[in-house]
C-alpha cells in the first residue's frame, strides 16, 4: 500500500485530465472532503462548549459525578457506562476495518460477517445512548435549601416520589459550596458521609426550598438552576451527543444498505469492495468524533 507515488497508473484509473495527482479514487476523496467539513461542525460544537464553560461564573457539573449510573444497578459507578459505550463503538470500528480488509481479498463471506458485526455494534451504541438520555432526563435526585443557604442533595431511589423523605433508605448529603452534585470522594480522598435517620428527617422538615432535580426548566419550582447546574450544560449534552448519535444512526443505516448490497453480490460483480471502504471511512469518523466527545464532555 505504500510507495504509490512511483507507481505507473493504467489509463482506466486516471481522471479525465490524464493523470491522478492524489492517486485516490473520486469517491474516497469526496468522502474525505465531507468528513473534513463534518469535523469542522463537531469541532465548532466542542469549542462552543469550551467557550461557555470557560466564561461561565457558575460552578459547572463534573462528568464523573453526573454519569455514574448503570442500568439495573444501584450505587455509584463513575464513567463505567460511558466507557462501555466507548468500547462498543471502538470495537465496531475494528470490525469495520476488518470488513474492509476482507474486501481487499475479495472475501465476500468475511465482509458479510464483519459488516454484520459492525451494524450490531452500532445499533447497541444507539440503544445505550437512548438509555443514557432517559436516565439524564430523570435525574438522580434534587436539592433542598435550608434557611442559612446550605444545600443538601436528596437521592431519589424511587422516581415520581413526591415526598422522598418517606422513600426507603432516605438520606441527605451536604453539597459543597460552588459545587453541583455530590462527589463520591471529597478532596483528599475522604468518603462523603450522608445524614440519615431522624437528623435527615429533621432537616427535610425545616427546608426552605425543594428543587426536584431534572433538567427541565419548566418542571422545577423555579428555573434558576436544575440538578445539572447551568442550563447550558444539559443543552450542550443533548445537542452534542444527539448530533453524534444521529451520525451513528445514519451510519448504521448506511452500513445496513451496504451489507445488503454485499450479500446481493453487487460489489463482487463490480470487482472491488471500495463502497465498503467509503462507508468505513464515515464509520471510523463517527468513532473518531466520539473519542473527542468522550474526552471533552465526559472527562474534562
Amino acid at each position, binding site marked *: 500500500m505504500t510507495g504509490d507515488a512511483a507507481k505507473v497508473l493504467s489509463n482506466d*484509473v486516471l481522471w479525465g485530465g490524464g493523470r491522478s495527482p492524489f492517486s485516490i479514487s473520486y469517491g474516497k476523496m469526496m468522502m474525505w472532503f465531507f468528513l473534513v467539513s463534518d469535523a469542522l461542525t463537531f469541532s465548532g460544537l466542542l469549542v462552543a462548549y469550551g467557550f461557555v464553560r470557560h466564561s461561565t461564573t457558575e460552578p459547572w457539573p463534573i462528568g464523573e459525578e453526573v454519569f455514574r449510573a448503570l442500568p439495573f444497578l444501584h450505587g455509584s459507578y463513575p464513567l463505567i457506562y460511558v466507557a462501555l459505550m466507548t468500547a462498543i463503538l471502538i470495537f465496531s470500528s475494528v470490525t469495520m476495518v476488518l470488513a474492509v480488509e476482507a474486501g481487499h481479498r475479495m472475501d465476500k463471506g468475511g465482509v458479510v460477517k464483519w459488516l454484520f458485526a459492525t451494524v450490531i455494534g452500532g445499533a447497541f451504541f444507539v440503544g445505550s445512548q437512548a438509555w443514557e438520555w432517559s436516565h439524564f432526563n430523570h435525574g438522580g435526585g434534587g436539592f433542598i435549601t435550608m434557611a442559612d443557604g446550605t444545600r443538601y442533595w436528596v437521592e431519589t431511589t424511587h422516581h415520581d416520589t413526591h415526598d422522598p423523605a418517606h422513600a426507603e433508605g432516605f438520606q441527605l448529603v451536604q453539597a459543597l459550596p460552588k459545587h453541583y452534585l455530590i462527589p463520591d470522594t471529597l478532596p483528599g480522598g475522604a468518603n462523603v458521609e450522608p445524614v440519615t435517620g431522624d437528623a435527615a428527617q429533621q432537616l427535610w422538615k425545616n427546608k426552605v426550598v425543594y428543587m426536584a432535580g431534572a433538567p427541565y426548566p419548566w418542571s422545577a419550582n423555579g428555573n434558576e438552576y436544575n440538578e445539572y447546574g447551568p442550563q447550558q450544560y444539559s443543552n450542550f449534552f443533548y445537542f452534542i451527543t444527539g448530533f453524534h448519535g444521529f451520525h451513528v444512526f445514519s451510519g448504521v443505516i448506511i452500513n445496513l444498505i451496504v451489507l445488503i448490497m454485499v450479500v446481493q453480490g453487487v460489489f463482487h460483480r463490480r470487482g472491488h469492495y471500495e463502497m465498503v471502504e467509503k462507508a468505513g471511512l464515515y464509520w471510523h469518523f463517527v468513532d473518531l468524533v466520539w473519542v473527542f466527545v468522550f474526552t471533552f464532555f465526559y472527562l474534562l
Partner: protein
Amino acid sequence: MERDDIIEYSLEAHHSEEHGRKVRRTIWMVTLLLAIVTTVEVTLGAYWKTWFSLDAWHTIKWLYVVLTLVKAGYIVKTFMHLGDERSNIRAIILLPYVLFILYLIFIAIWESQYVNYLWENYL
C-alpha cells in the same frame, strides 16, 4: 450506455492473503492500544481524587488531551488508512483543518476569558 458514475477508479482495492495477515495484525495491535488508553482514561477519571491531590488535575487534564490525540491519530492513520495515502492528499485533508481549528480554539479560549472577566466584575 455505460454508467461512469459507478466506475470506482480503485487503485488499492486488492491485496494478497499474505499482506492481509500483516494488515490484520496491525489492526489488532491498534485495537489493543486504544483499549488500554481508554481504560487508563476512565480509571483516572473515576479515581484520581482518591489517588492524587487536587493540584494534580491540571496535569491530568493535559494528559487527557495528549491521550485523546494519540487515539485520534491511530484511528485516522490505521483505521481510515490515511497513513497509506499519498502525502499530498494527507496534506490537503489535515493542514487546512488543523490550521483553522487551532485558531478557533485560540480565539474561543481568549475571548471566553474576557467574557468571564466582564461577568465577574461588571454584572
